[in-house]
């Protein structure tokens, strides 16, 4: 049976070869399946990465690095080996080896370190660089936003000008038309005239009485003196005193037994020029 033994040996060899081939393919497939993949800007983690040699750290980041790498945790893993947990996120699509971004903590050269491949994929279409690239549109010189803004500004300016101008004009017109209030002398004379002709009512007589008191207060320059004191002073005055006494009898005393001659009493004030008191005061002041 040597032919049969030979054939069995050949079958065994074929089985071993098939088994090795299967293991190799499976190992290749398994390694390919363990490669980490992430899209641009999204973070991803790789756990249980065993790398030989002294402890590793992330290299200093420089501008233009396509990957940002971070070591989450480091654990010793037997003699002269460490187990790492890594996190990364890619800024540019492509395939990278994370080991390229590591260095020895003790400053020694990195040496032989197995690759830690990752793939960063882009979600955007290959021809699209930016998410939304707005196109600059030029604003027309006439019409549109700029035209309307200019128009509104001009109208606002014209409105403000008109309001200010109108107010000034009104104030100026008011000043022109506004006459100064009548002086005491101007008010006194017609009242005296009416009183002499008996045309004044009780209330107007009351006003006349106060006007005469105010007249003498002004004439004697007692305008800043206490009003109660002024009455006492006026009563002592040779001209104002008799006037106030007669007014008291005429207007306040019941059943006055003395007839008061109103015309005679008010005669000095009948032909009083309107500006007499003011002139007199001005003369006194000078």
């Amino acid at each position, binding site marked *: 049976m040597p032919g049969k033994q030979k054939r069995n040996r050949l079958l065994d060899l074929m089985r071993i070869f098939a088994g090795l081939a299967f293991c190799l393919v499976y190992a290749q497939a398994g390694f390919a399946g363990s490669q980490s993949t992430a899209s641009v800007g999204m973070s991803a983690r790789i756990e249980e990465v065993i790398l030989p040699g002294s402890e590793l750290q992330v290299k200093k980041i420089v501008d233009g690095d396509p990957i940002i790498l971070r070591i989450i945790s480091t654990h010793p893993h037997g003699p002269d080996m460490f187990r790492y947990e890594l996190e990364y996120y890619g800024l540019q699509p492509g395939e990278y080896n994370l080991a390229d971004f590591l260095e020895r903590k003790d400053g020694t050269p990195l040496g032989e370190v197995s690759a830690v491949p990752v793939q960063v994929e882009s979600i955007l279409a290959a021809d699209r660089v930016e998410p939304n690239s707005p196109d600059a549109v030029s604003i027309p010189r006439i019409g549109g936003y700029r035209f309307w803004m200019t128009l509104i500004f001009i109208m606002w300016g014209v409105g403000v000008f008109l309001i200010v101008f109108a107010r000034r004009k009104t104030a100026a017109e008011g000043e022109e038309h506004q006459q100064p*209030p*009548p002086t*005491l002398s101007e*008010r006194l004379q017609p009242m005296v005239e*009416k009183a002499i002709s008996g*045309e*004044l*009512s*009780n*209330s*107007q*007589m*009351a*006003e006349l*009485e*106060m*006007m*005469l*008191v*105010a*007249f003498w*207060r*002004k004439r004697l320059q007692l*305008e800043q003196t*206490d*009003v*109660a004191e*002024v*009455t*006492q002073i006026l*009563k002592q005055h040779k001209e104002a*005193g008799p006037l*106030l*006494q007669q007014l*008291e009898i005429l*207007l*306040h*005393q*019941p059943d006055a*037994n003395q007839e008061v001659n109103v015309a005679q009493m008010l005669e000095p004030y009948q032909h009083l020029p309107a500006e007499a008191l003011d002139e007199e005061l001005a003369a006194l002041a000078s």
Partner: protein
Amino acid sequence: MTDHNDVSDEVLEKTRFIQDVRDQVATVVVGQDEVVERLLISLFTGGHILLQGVPGLAKTLLVSVLSKSIELDFSRIQFTIDLLPSDILGSQILDQKSNEFVTRTGPIFTNLLLADEINRAAPKVQGALLEAMQERKVTIGNETLSLPAPFLVIATQNPVEQAGTFELPEAQLDRFMLCHRLNYPEPSEEREVLKRNMALGIRKEDRGAVVNTEFDVMQHKPVGSSEDLVSCMQAVNDIHVSDTFLEHVIEVINRTRNHPNIELGCSPRGGIALIKASRARALINGRNYVIPEDLFVLAEDVILHRIRLNYEALADGLTGQAVLQDMLRDLGATPSSISREA
């Protein structure tokens, strides 16, 4: 300027009584003629008076001597923060013998009541007093009692120390017919006060001696009775008020309501008080009619506590007194605030 020959005998008789009272007061109180006049005005018109002044101006002495001069009852209450309405009005207490409640009247049941420093009491005490002043009756428990006649409250208020006080609101101030501001005496009057005080001496009591005060030397002999007071009140009521004077009062009151510096003008009660007080002043001065001088003299006491300046005036540093004086000076000098028909 009034000739006394023109005045009726009745008025002259009253004037004599008033002068007697003034003389009696003058034996104890030096100066303060103005305050005495205002107190008599209040007494004759039945209006209450608020005296504003610093302590030590003989307010209590003045009221005390006035009450003794006219044979009137007098009580004094010192208002404090812990005073209760029952301390003034009275309360009902249980008589253990009869096992019934008995009404005990408070010090308010008098003719002249001096409410010293009224702004120191809590508002409910002020309210109780001011209500009694207005209604002239008091309710204790279920019993309503009338206050004696005459009944006059003379309240005092210190204008300087305002810490821990309760300012009387305008509505309550309005209940006072007059609010008089007391001033320090003139140097000559002060000299007399000091001389009199030095001459008071001491009196022996028990085994020792005590220093006499003005209250001790006060004469207890009255110069008039309550009948005299009643007849004076009647005479005040008969004082003639001309239509012209009424117009002056209306003009003044109206100006307080339209003045640019005044937020709250004078109430109609102010006008009524002005006429009442003017009548009393006319009687005191031996006239049977009122004249504008009465109005000018009394305006400050009647009007000032009834008006309130607005914010702008206060911000400008104006005082009520200055505004009122300006307003009175404007009478006649500026056109009337009331439209008048010929």
